């Protein structure tokens, strides 16, 4: 079902439906989330969805999805012994190379470096429900990955890269 947005973008009922699309990405961030799929969940036209989502949550939908995938990858690196290749595919990337590059661009270190570092830290957060700890560790990605890459180091930039994982 797709309906035309007649309500103001600040309508709580519209925001609630946009939240539903965000929740669905949260629940299955490894899946593909084209705008058409998200727009249908929210009952917003495809033409309006990305703008509405960004107005509501501060980031475009696909950048939001990317932060969730990185967050999940970090948790799997920390909490499991899965090989990095398996983690890349399990969290929704089609290529290990893209995963490693985006992961490094977003977090500042490689997946294996993060795994090594996390394993040496004591865990003081075990009394906090797990999901809240993970949410607090979600990458705070205020700019596009390509932009972050450009700011962090010109040698790593790639004009053809898109942030859509």
């Amino acid at each position: 079902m797709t309906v035309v947005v007649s309500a103001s973008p600040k309508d709580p009922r519209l925001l609630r439906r946009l939240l539903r699309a965000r929740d669905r990405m949260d629940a299955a961030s490894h899946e593909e989330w084209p705008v058409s799929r998200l727009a249908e969940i929210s009952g917003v036209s495809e033409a309006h969805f990305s703008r509405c989502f960004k107005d509501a949550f501060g980031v475009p939908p696909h950048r939001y999805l990317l932060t969730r995938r990185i967050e999940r990858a970090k948790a799997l690196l920390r909490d499991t012994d899965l090989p990095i290749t398996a983690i890349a595919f399990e969290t929704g990337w089609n290529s290990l190379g893209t995963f490693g590059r985006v992961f490094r661009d977003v977090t500042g270190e490689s997946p294996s470096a993060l795994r090594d570092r996390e394993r040496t830290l004591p865990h003081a957060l075990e009394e906090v429900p797990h999901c809240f700890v993970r949410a607090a560790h979600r990458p705070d990605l205020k700019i596009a990955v390509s932009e972050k890459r450009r700011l962090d180091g010109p040698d790593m930039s790639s004009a053809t890269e898109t942030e859509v994982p």
Partner: protein
Amino acid sequence: MTEGVQVAGIYVHDQDEALEFYVGKLGFEVHTDARNGDFRWLTVKHPDQPTFQLGLFKPQAPVVDDATAQSLNEAVAKGAMPPLVLVVPDCRAAYDAMRKRGVEFTQEPTERYGNVDASFRDPSGNGWKMLEPQKAWA
């Protein structure tokens, strides 16, 4: 008497809808439903926890101004309010029962470190974690 928290409230967009959800779908009971003009003091309690009331409050004038009420409704609808945790003895059974009653789950029951948890939202957007603690914690 004993000391402790008696009421903690959440903001809801529509109190009738919230009442239908918390009582009709989650199994809470009405504790107080008192009206004074447009204002409605509405609290519910869990049947196993009679000394604690969950307030279902609508942000509205004159308690807050209209613009603030709008901001609060938006924040709730965007899922930006603080975490709520409901403890249950059997997360998967509660999930099945609540889903049948139409509760919108955002995460299926998942086991982590011996705990089983699921997530759901109320119609306004308040997010709940439903937690079955591992036996040693219970």
